[in-house]
């Protein structure tokens, strides 16, 4: 018999209690994994928006609750575009509406010339024609969902657009959305002369970070976003879900630790006399400590495995919701599982503290006298 099998044997003495404790901790781990995967997907979507059109950074309204609510005026766009340290800019208006079964269909309004410069991967048809207001290019996903072909007409908010081309991209929201002329989308959105974001490419020889900082200093209402860590400046939602994730993880630790503590306290209490016998036959305090912490760790490690599996299943189930499916693809990074494991280890250690103290506080004789 190994020490590990001794620990497992102790856990199996109260199978139902062990199972219920594992299930309880698993719920917390499930939440951490599922939420982590969904938030990872959201961040990937944000990263795709950030890195679109090969820009160095994007500029949007500072403090916008959601990037799609950002407004950058024509004057602000012009002020950025005319800077000597800026090589080129691309203004895009993101318009979100329900199209067919997709409640989060993103139509990106931008100048035909800018779209051409961005060189999208056109699989069928052609790019938007300069000056035309009734043309639209569909992402391959959107074309499939709508069953639309080049030459056919699709309606967005009762405005008819002629499909001139279909493009393919790894960018999920763009693949499930469309490109249309900026002026047409401004009309659709009722936002004349504004764009949502301005993508900026710094001039040759200019440091993009310095250019971004300079724009922020000059145009106080705007924020320049170079990487994901800055993304919260223009999308409070990312910050909120990050905070939510942290809070839920902390809650999972708290609830899990109480569950483990409860189980371990009961287990140690029931085995007080037995612990006295172990001390009497020569077990050191360290070995008693290792036994209790080992039991708590085993509980939590089993819960990590089951919780992680349930978390993956849950995050896949979330994709059954069309809104979610059109916006993000859950990301299962190693980081999420490391976080889940860390939560489990913290839960085990915190949950074992009191039972260990209780077990070691008693002298062998006090433990042996326990009825």
């Amino acid at each position, binding site marked *: *018999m190994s020490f590990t099998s*001794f620990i497992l*044997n102790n856990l199996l003495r109260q199978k139902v209690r062990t199972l219920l404790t594992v299930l309880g901790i698993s719920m917390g781990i499930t939440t951490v994994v599922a939420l982590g995967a969904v938030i990872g997907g959201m961040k990937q979507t944000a990263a795709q928006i950030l890195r679109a059109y090969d820009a160095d950074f994007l500029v949007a309204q500072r403090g916008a609750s959601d990037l799609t609510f950002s407004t950058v005026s024509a004057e602000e766009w012009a002020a950025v575009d005319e800077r000597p340290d800026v090589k080129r800019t691309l203004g895009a208006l993101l318009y979100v509406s329900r199209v067919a079964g997709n409640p989060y269909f993103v139509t990106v309004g931008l100048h035909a010339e800018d779209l051409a410069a961005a060189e999208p991967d056109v699989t069928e048809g052609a790019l938007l024609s300069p000056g035309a207001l009734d043309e639209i290019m569909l992402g391959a996903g959107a074309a499939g969902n709508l069953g639309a072909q080049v030459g056919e007409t699709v309606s967005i908010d009762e405005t008819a657009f002629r499909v001139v081309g279909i493009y393919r991209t790894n960018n999920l929201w763009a693949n499930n959305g469309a490109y249309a002329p900026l002026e047409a989308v401004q009309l659709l959105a009722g936002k004349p002369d504004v764009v949502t974001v301005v993508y900026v490419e710094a001039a040759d020889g200019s440091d993009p970070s310095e250019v971004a900082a300079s724009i922020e200093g000059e145009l106080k209402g705007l924020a320049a976003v170079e990487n994901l860590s800055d993304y919260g400046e223009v999308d409070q939602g990312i910050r909120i879900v990050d905070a939510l994730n942290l809070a839920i993880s902390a809650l999972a630790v708290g609830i899990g630790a109480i569950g483990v503590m409860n189980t371990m306290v009961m287990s140690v209490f029931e085995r007080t006399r037995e612990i006295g016998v172990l001390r*009497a*036959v*020569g077990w*050191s305090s360290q070995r008693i400590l290792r036994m209790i912490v080992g039991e708590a760790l085993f509980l939590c490690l089993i819960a990590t495995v089951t919780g992680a599996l349930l978390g993956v299943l849950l995050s896949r189930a979330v994709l059954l919701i069309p809104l979610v499916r059109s916006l993000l693809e859950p990301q299962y990074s190693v980081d999420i599982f490391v976080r889940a494991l860390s939560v489990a280890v913290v839960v085990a250690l915190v949950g074992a503290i009191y039972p260990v103290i209780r077990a070691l506080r008693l002298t*062998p004789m006090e433990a042996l006298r326990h009825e």
Partner: protein
Amino acid sequence: MSDGYAIEAVGLDKTFEGGLIPALKGADLRVARGEFVAIVGPSGCGKSTLLHLIAALDKPDAGSLRVLGRDVAALKNLSNYRARDVGIVFQLHNLIPSLSAIDNVQVPMFEAGLTARRRRERAKELLGVVGMAGKELLRPTQLSGGERQRVAIARALANEPPVLLADEPTGNLDSEAGKLVLDLLDDMRRRRGLTIVMVTHDRDVAARADRIIRMLDGRVLPDPDERAATIARSAPPAD
């Protein structure tokens, strides 16, 4: 004090409940190496308390206790002492119910630094010695009272301690099973040179020992038999 004694206690005091309940009042005890002694006395006379102090399960309030020539109070690692120097058998076997007989015997061996294979081999060998061959995989609930006590004796001998302490080892057994356990203790003493201290309230059981030590009101009564001293003087020096 002489190192010829396996156990030498002088003036041991022990009280409980903050001094309200005196258990030992200056108890003296000398047990020679290889001797089998029985401590007898009425309930509450302190005989179990004395045994527990020797097992280092509790600490005396006053007095000195030397076991195998070492001052127990000065030992830095009591766990090591309990694991290697003294084995203890309780009135209730105190086996772990979810473990088989062979696994129960292995429990003290975790502290001995043996491999899992060696632990298993030694446990099997010990169970054979106590007459439990073929019942290694049975759990305590599948064993009779006498068999459980024999497993408990095997567990007490797991790390081959030179001193075996037995607290009413036959107290819960019928006379036949009790006799088998006593035969086993006697056999262990003769074959392994064990020093055995057995607490009992049964005079017939005590009669199996080399010497009977009587206790009353927390004290060891004067021993008219000086054999212990004689044995101590003639015993070989400690290893």
